[in-house]
């Protein structure tokens, strides 16, 4: 089992504690609050992913074969979701990021937030993360 799926399993377990939707959202809000706010210098137009309702900023670095993502959002719930994605995908190899289908999201009940019909920008963020991984892979091969 690769590391993304392992982290995914942990996340599934964490979310499975919550029977109530309010508890789940409370946890997302907590995650959102605890995600380190990225430096003002990363909050640029070029790092911006415009969901229709909430904004997401995403930056990526490459270090020792791994991609490191930093991200932020102006909405807390989006930020909570962003932190889950960062936890799974940051500090992984480009190949793992490109190949992984994030199937763990199905079992967390968070999947709906990532539908193309949502207006929070998260699906575009995942696309963007994969593009970054692709770019780093090509550059370093």
């Amino acid at each position, binding site marked *: 089992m690769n590391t993304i799926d392992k982290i995914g399993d942990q996340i599934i377990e964490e979310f499975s504690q919550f029977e109530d939707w309010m508890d789940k959202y*409370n946890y997302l809000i907590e995650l959102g609050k605890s995600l380190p706010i990225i430096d003002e210098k990363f909050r640029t137009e070029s790092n911006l992913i415009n969901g229709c309702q909430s904004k997401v900023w995403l930056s990526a670095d490459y270090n020792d074969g791994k991609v490191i993502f930093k991200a932020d959002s*102006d909405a807390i719930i989006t930020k909570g979701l962003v932190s889950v994605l960062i936890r799974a995908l940051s500090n992984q190899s480009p190949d793992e990021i490109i190949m992984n289908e994030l199937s763990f999201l199905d079992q967390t009940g968070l999947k709906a937030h990532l539908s193309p019909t949502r207006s929070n920008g998260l699906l575009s963020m995942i696309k963007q993360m994969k593009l970054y991984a692709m770019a780093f892979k090509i550059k370093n091969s």
Partner: protein
Amino acid sequence: MNHMISDIEKIRADFPILATNVYGKPLVYLDNAATTQKPQVVIDTLSSYYSTMNANIHRGTHYLSIEATEAYEAARRNIAAFIKASSSSEIIFTRGTTESINLLADTFSRAFIKSGDEILVSEMEHHSNIVPWQLAAEKSGATVKVIPMNDLGELVLDNLDSLLTTKTRIVAVAHVSNALGTIHPIEEIIRKAHEKGIPVFIDGAQAIQHFSVDVQQLDCDFYAFSGHKMYAPMGIGVLYGKEKYLNQLPPYHGGGEMIKTVFFEKTIYNDLPFRFEAGTPNVSGVLGLDAAIQYMLETGMDKIEKIEENLYLYALAKLGEIDGIRFLSRAAHKTSVISFLIGTIHPYDAGTLIDHFGVAIRTGHHCAQPLMDRLKIPGTIRASLAIYNKPSEIDMLCEAIIKVKQMFL
């Protein structure tokens, strides 16, 4: 108020969707400015049309086609009467307000707008009343000028005289703002524009469902609205235009219905209103709109206004009791649209959670980004009321807001 409530319960019984549960809770639908729900009589009109009358119209010699054509043209007359147009040939059926405005912006600009001319809109317009004019301006070399607003959420007409220049070809403003609910002083705008011979288009998408509109009394030159925001089906709308202007506009869509004769060398266009109705019309949509108007008239426009005003005042009072609520409009004249923010909570966060309490409100920029930029906010939370809403639904909204606040503490 008690008398009102029994009235409202009677009205609610006409709307089957109001009995729906979402997340196991009874649906509280407060997103009426986006689209209203439909009374059974409108739904039945569609079923019955397709079960007994459906046919393509205007050119048929057979029974169903003649029946359907006559029903369609009778609906046009009813709709003309509803807005007090002087003739039913001033009623053009479109797909909705957006198409109405695009039709007008395209044809009007081709007839009357040239390079260097100006089009005047307001800072509080819906994108549908901005982008078509931008596109028309781009094609013709004109510029789009803007009537500004103040911090109360009202248009400021102080400089209107200087905004209406000798280059201004048309003024396009909303009757009511969709984001804030402000009723604009269109009478004054129309009067001042007409003093300089400038025609005025009014976007009535957020007005027509709330109070009586009399286009002849307003003396506006064009008026548009959408069926789906006034208890009618989706996919149908209206562009009203004074005959003297419509007659001067070039054709828009080409196709069946809009022509008299077609040769490869030349094509002769049909008379009003058919000239602007190319292709098979949405007969079921038109009959649905007719039924919705009938429903509104039977309910009574005065009563609709009264019910909504009462509930609006109730909502303002109740919401005002909640700590940290900030209303984004303090306009003197308003419909029952309430745009607000809760402390520093992002509207998207608030909307996502309020939804889980079974309350449907809308959050975001409401397709009015220039307005949001002016207010320097990413969006608002908007509750918009209709005739079937009741005080207990406002209470549920307030409860949801209080719980959401707690979640963010």
